[in-house]
């Protein structure tokens, strides 16, 4: 039996899809089998980040409505053969995902794959609840700013109330992933400090992903950053997060500003 992970945030645009793809790819690179499930019906962007958008024949909604078998809808990644995607539908409306349908599909995936990663839509409504419903573990993606942290806090409250696991009185493993962390802005005090974020959310930290051009470039060429630029700080942060998810203990350092002569001069001039 595999582990179902929901990647969620409340606030939009904080890096859920980027993180789902990168962590999924990093887990798959260790040889584990991974299914990425796009719950963002109507937007469908996990396939873009994975460069699989031209290979989508059937999607999540087709499977739920019985128009395709799960095995037909799963798209195998061309670069990492243990990585699979179940795409979201672009054309259906959000209500096409039914409670029972989601339960069936996630249940079958859990039997086949080591990891099932559910990329949640933004918000605290039905789509987000469906994505978290059957999770065993949650990764709460947060940017170090007030509105993002507050929405994450709200989502954590829902994880404690609305998941199958917590309804049955079982514990739910929850982690914070801080993304788009900018050491320069953090040093200036323009962003919330990591400690403040963790104090507010009171959950363990699974990684800090810096704001980085590598992430943007990777998503433009349809590759998770761990494949596109494995030596970048962000790729390493995701790879380390994947190892922590697997239970390894890996040191976690807060990214700092690299002091260069020019950096120093510019800061003084500004």
């Amino acid at each position, binding site marked *: 039996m595999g582990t179902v992970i929901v990647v969620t945030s409340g606030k939009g645009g904080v890096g859920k899809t980027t993180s789902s793809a990168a962590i999924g790819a990093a887990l798959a690179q260790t040889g584990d089998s991974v299914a990425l499930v796009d719950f963002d019906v109507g937007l469908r962007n996990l396939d873009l980040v994975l460069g699989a958008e031209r290979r989508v024949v059937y999607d999540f909604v087709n499977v739920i409505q019985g128009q395709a078998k799960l095995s037909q809808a799963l798209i195998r990644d061309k670069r990492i053969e243990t990585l699979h995607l179940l795409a979201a539908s672009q054309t259906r409306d959000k209500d096409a995902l039914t409670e029972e349908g989601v339960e069936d599909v996630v249940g079958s995936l859990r039997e086949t794959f080591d990891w099932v990663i559910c990329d949640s839509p933004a918000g605290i*409504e039905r789509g987000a609840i469906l994505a978290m419903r059957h999770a065993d573990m949650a990764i709460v993606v947060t940017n170090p700013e007030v509105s993002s942290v507050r929405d994450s*806090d709200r989502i954590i*409250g829902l994880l404690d109330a609305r998941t199958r696991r917590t309804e049955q009185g079982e514990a739910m493993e929850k982690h914070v992933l801080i993304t788009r962390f900018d050491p320069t802005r953090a040093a200036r005090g323009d962003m919330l400090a990591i400690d403040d974020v963790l104090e507010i959310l009171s959950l363990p930290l699974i990684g800090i992903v810096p704001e980085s051009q590598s992430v943007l470039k990777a998503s433009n060429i349809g590759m998770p950053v761990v494949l596109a630029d494995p030596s970048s700080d962000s790729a390493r942060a995701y790879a380390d997060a994947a190892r922590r998810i697997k239970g390894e203990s890996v040191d976690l350092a807060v990214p700092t500003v690299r002091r260069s002569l020019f950096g120093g001069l510019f800061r003084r001039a500004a």
Partner: protein
Amino acid sequence: MPPVAGWLDDLDAVARQSLAFFANRPVVLNLARLAPDRNETNAIIDALKIRNIRVIAVEGVDPAWLDPSLAPLGSGKESGKVVDFPGARAPAQPRAAASSRGSSIIDRPVRSGQTIFHPEGDVIVLGSVSSGAEVIAGGSVHVYGTLRGRALAGATGNPGALIFCRKFQAELVSIDGSYMTAEQTPPDLIGKPVQIRLKNDAIVTDILD
């Protein structure tokens, strides 16, 4: 089904004491623990309606009993406040005894969007109360972490109720209907261990050192 009349009395007391408490707040009703039948469900909804409490969804009962606009959560509506009905409760006691009734210990943080509503005694929160979260007690409120959200003590009419927190950063504190907003808060209180009490209907704050 346990009696809800006493619970409604407490609710009325909160509404009377506490700054238009339910005004403009979407409320989600969770009746799972009460397990009412169809008629009882509708009676509860009606009882809230005549109090101008805007129930936007009802959970824990057969959705077929409900007006379609009150379909359970997870069917498209934004979730608002969640108010838990008590399982079973003692019949209503005289108001003065409010703080001597049982206290409620919350052994986790109170997260943004959550409300702890305990009209019958003290609330003790072992973690923090987030910004956007709210604790309402008939008695006193004790927060062992940081109080960032709202704390309303003595909400059923008890001017002797107190609020304590280890770190003060509250959005609003209120005792027996008198309140102090973040804007009105003396700046030297922020981040300090604080006790809040009522003196001649005015909020008084003391730093505990």
